[in-house]
């Protein structure tokens, strides 16, 4: 790192005790490159070291997906219940509501205190916004988005039970 030190004698004297900003003449990309290098070399190093020092005991049960765990059944390409997506979509309604409510709540008191805005200007837009979201939620509710969807076999067994 000697090259990074200021070359002339005088400034070395001034810089005693701390590194002057002048020292960091090195390109920013060197730091990023070093970070990337270290970031890559740590996991790779760990893999190499464990490869070198681990004992090798080949055994068929080691090839199972979960060693000494559950025995997998079937493939991963199964169909999910559509209901999960419905819940996720309804969550978006509340999510957006929260995202906008927070900044609004922060400025609400100030807005009321200032003479420029009355209660209508401060509260009205948010009430309108919530009302629009509520319309969406009410619509989803009424059209059965929150009713738990059933597969055909489930529906059939329900009718058998009745």
């Amino acid at each position, binding site marked *: 790192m000697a090259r990074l030190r200021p070359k002339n004698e005088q400034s070395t004297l001034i810089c005693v005790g701390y590194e002057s900003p002048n020292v960091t003449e090195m390109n920013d990309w060197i730091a990023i490159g070093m970070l990337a290098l270290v970031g890559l070399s740590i996991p790779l190093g760990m893999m190499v070291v464990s490869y070198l020092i681990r004992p090798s005991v080949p055994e068929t049960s080691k090839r199972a997906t979960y060693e000494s765990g559950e025995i997998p059944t079937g493939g991963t390409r199964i169909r999910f219940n559509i209901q999960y997506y419905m819940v996720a979509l309804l969550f978006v309604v509340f999510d957006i509501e929260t995202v906008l409510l927070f900044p609004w709540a922060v400025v609400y008191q100030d807005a009321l205190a200032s003479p420029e805005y009355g209660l209508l200007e401060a509260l009205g837009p948010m009430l309108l916004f919530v009302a629009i979201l509520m*319309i969406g939620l009410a619509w989803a509710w009424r059209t059965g988005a929150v009713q738990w969807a059933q597969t055909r076999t489930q529906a059939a067994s329900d009718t058998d039970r009745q």
Partner: protein
Amino acid sequence: MAVFQLAEWTAMAPALILAGTALALFVFDSISPHSTNRSLLAGTAAGGALASLAVAVWFIVAGVGTPTVDGGLGEITVLSDQFVVDQMALYFMIIVAIVTALIVVASYDYLVGHAYQAEYYSLVVLAATGMSMMAAANSLVTIFIALELASLPSYALVAILKDNRGSVEAGLKYFLIGALSSAIFLYGISLVYGATGHLQLDNIAEVIAAGDADPYGGLLGLGILMLIGGFAFKTASVPFHFWAPDAYEGAPAPISGFLSSASKAAGFVILFRVFTEAFPLGDQMNALIGFDWTVAFIILAIVTMTVGNFAAATQNNVKRMLAYSSIGHAGYALIGVAGLSADGGELVMGAAMMHLLVYGFMNTGAFLFVALAEHWGVGRTFEDYNGLSRQAPIACAAMAVFMFSLAGIPPFGGFFSKFFLFMGALEASAANTAMLAVAAALVVNSALSLYYYSRLVKALWIEEPATTRDRLARPTGLYAAIVVAAVMTVLILPGFGPVVDAALDAAVAALG
């Protein structure tokens, strides 16, 4: 005219009325789900669209957007300049409202026995709200939000025939390409913001003019190219056009008409606004980004119209032919941006706006005729349409009007808008000789398009029917919408003066 003073936000009334209509339909559907009261639903949606149309026409007549020196009210900005209501915004709001009204009236018959009536109408009106807001959006953020508001309902509408494989496939393709191009568009926005530090269009122009963006010319140029990609998707122009034939073919025919007319017009208005407001042409701009952006549009215009028309000429399926012809027309309208220059281009941009208005009638009408044929269940190819004029002369006469107008045959509206485009391109060639090639491509492609448009007219009127058909039904709504569209395609000719004035005024205001 302005006897009473309205609040500034009421300038957005054409879009707000549409939004209110969509919400009213949702409330109605919440109160009585799965309603089959088609007249009430279609009536509400059509009423909303017509009210939006009436308000937009009233505003433009009252002088909103007309410069105050000419006795108008000047352009009105809403929400700290995030939206601007000027003549161009109102002009395109009118196009959107007209197409929405036609589509909704025609859907009344198309949706007989359909499971999702209220959802369909509210999605159509929501998409129209987005398109109406696109017309007025004045900042890259509001442009993107309005674009998404128009796009998301469109994806659902294309796939609304849930039991029809073609419709679902079309919806998925449209959605995937739409998501990709939205991502590209958004990335473009972020690059432009990174280079200039502003999202509002006039502020971007100021930063560029002040030279503050000079160190980031490459970044800005890349951002502009990505924005062009986003616009190309919305207007179905060449690099992102390949969703159009599949989406239009699979979608319900009224929705195809809606997307290819209103959605395309809305894509063009943001294209016009962004490139005239934010990136004004000139030596400084060219030096900054390293290229002249009109060159990109000249290439896009020529390639788009050529690809669209040549592909349309080889189609056997009528809806697919119309889809490719709609790509070709996007190429014609792109001339409006390609012909801009540092100190001119009002005529060519005004001509593109005229073309989009006429196109709103003739193309919507053509797709509604296809909707009528689907309603009859006669089939999809040219041969299936053979001899339909024996049973349905009125609708077939209207279709002939649409076809000849799309081809640009003199007595109809399409001829005049293409004529103005041609004249505008020639005028613009004084500043940029490459526009001569564009003008030549326009003429060659129009001549080619006559081949496949007249092929359909020949099938309808001259060919013998391949099979004997039963008497064809005359659904009132579809017929009414088709006849209105045809009458307007013809009548727009004597009434072309006001249209020309409105379009040219809007173009001058946008460029000035």
